[in-house]
């Protein structure tokens, strides 16, 4: 019987803990990018998805559907290997990963926020317009805050699923936690110890994120009911 405990603690951990710590930070860096850029761009895309002009709405809806209905791995492969052939500009794994995760984030967030916007009663917009508020003010102070607060649970879920999705960046050789762990595992020849520790790290960081998101959620809910 393989003894997990005796192999987990010594050996690779003393040697590679720094590499693992950096790998976790790299995963979180790409998560922050996907969520930060994705959410911001998602707000804009959501408004564009609801635009009365078909010339604006059409391409945005097509992009969102295209990204949401193909696997992220295929998108990453396409961006990393196929896109440079099209543009003639070479790419690094990090750059491809950044483009891929930000694009995917924008489309998934856009779809959620769009649902939120449609959930805000139309009367709110009419009332704001009747009060003479500018369009910018109506969107930024009335509609979007309500749309975001109403969809906080779905947004939090998406953040968590993007944390998991950062592991897929390993397929184009981004040195995040998954990639680093499989490398250490190959070097030490101890897959059970290394990959189990990796799994525990994902669970730990995932649990921390869940806790944080929960706090943000309750904080926003409190503020909005006051």
């Amino acid at each position: 019987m393989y003894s997990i405990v005796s192999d987990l603690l010594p050996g690779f951990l003393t040697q590679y803990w720094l590499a693992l710590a950096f790998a976790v930070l790299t995963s979180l860096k790409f998560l922050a990018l996907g969520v930060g850029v994705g959410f911001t761009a998602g707000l804009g895309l959501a408004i564009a998805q609801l635009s009365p002009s078909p010339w604006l709405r059409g391409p945005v809806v097509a992009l969102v559907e295209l990204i949401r209905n193909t696997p992220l791995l295929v998108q990453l492969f396409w961006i990393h290997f196929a896109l440079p052939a099209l543009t003639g500009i070479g790419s690094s794994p990090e750059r491809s990963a950044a483009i891929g995760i930000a694009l995917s984030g924008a489309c998934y967030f856009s779809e959620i926020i769009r649902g939120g916007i449609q959930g805000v009663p139309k009367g709110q917009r009419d009332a704001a317009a009747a009060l003479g508020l500018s369009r910018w003010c109506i969107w930024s102070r009335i509609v979007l805050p309500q749309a975001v607060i109403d969809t906080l649970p779905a947004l939090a879920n998406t953040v968590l699923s993007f944390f998991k999705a950062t592991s897929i960046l390993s397929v184009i050789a981004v040195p995040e936690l998954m990639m680093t762990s499989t490398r250490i595992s190959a070097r030490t020849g101890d897959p059970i110890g290394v990959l189990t520790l990796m799994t525990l790290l994902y669970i730990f960081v995932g649990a921390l994120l869940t806790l944080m998101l929960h706090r943000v959620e309750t904080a926003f809910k409190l503020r909005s009911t006051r």
Partner: protein
Amino acid sequence: MRLDLTFLAETWPQLAQGVLATLAITAISFLGALVLGYGLTILRLSGRTGLQRAGNLYVALFRVIPELGVIFWSYYCLPILLGLALSEYTCGILALMAIGAAYASEIFRAGYNALPRGQMDAARALGLGNWQTWRLVLAPQILRRTMPALINCGIDTLKNSTLLAAIGASELAYQAYQIGNATYNYLAPFTFVAIVFFLIIFPLSLLSRHREAALQRQSR
């Protein structure tokens, strides 16, 4: 560089094999996930604290661990732990089943909890037995209510099946990568693969949305 589709003439056997492998992996994994998820739901609704906790822990764990992590763990660790030689397909499918089961169980449980309590009592009052109550009254309602979510779960399994490329299972994405490596033409095969996935997934997600909208109308 333009999109050259002549590559299809030479590589179609490889791509066709990839499509079939992707569909087979997805179908087996999803069916397994439904069966496992069903069993898991029975555990979680059994009312026995120990079983319930174990079931809930399983679901919580598999929802937070990245899919690729489960796949790698299964590929590298299972053969050692079990002392068996397992192919990348077996390990990958087992991982996809284990992940899908957690999500399917969440869906089944939500569907069961959404049933009005009176249904069970009414069936009892009509003199239906356990099995009849389940088959004629509860199961059809749960299935109808959870259909959109189950379709989405199937879509996720299909998307996750591409991750088996990372352990060298020759499904569609892996085949495209191989063709790209051999011909130095990545644009055509990857575009082709993206289109194939879109053509399979998009109708399914439209169907899911349609079922969802129909349910919303009914409940109003």
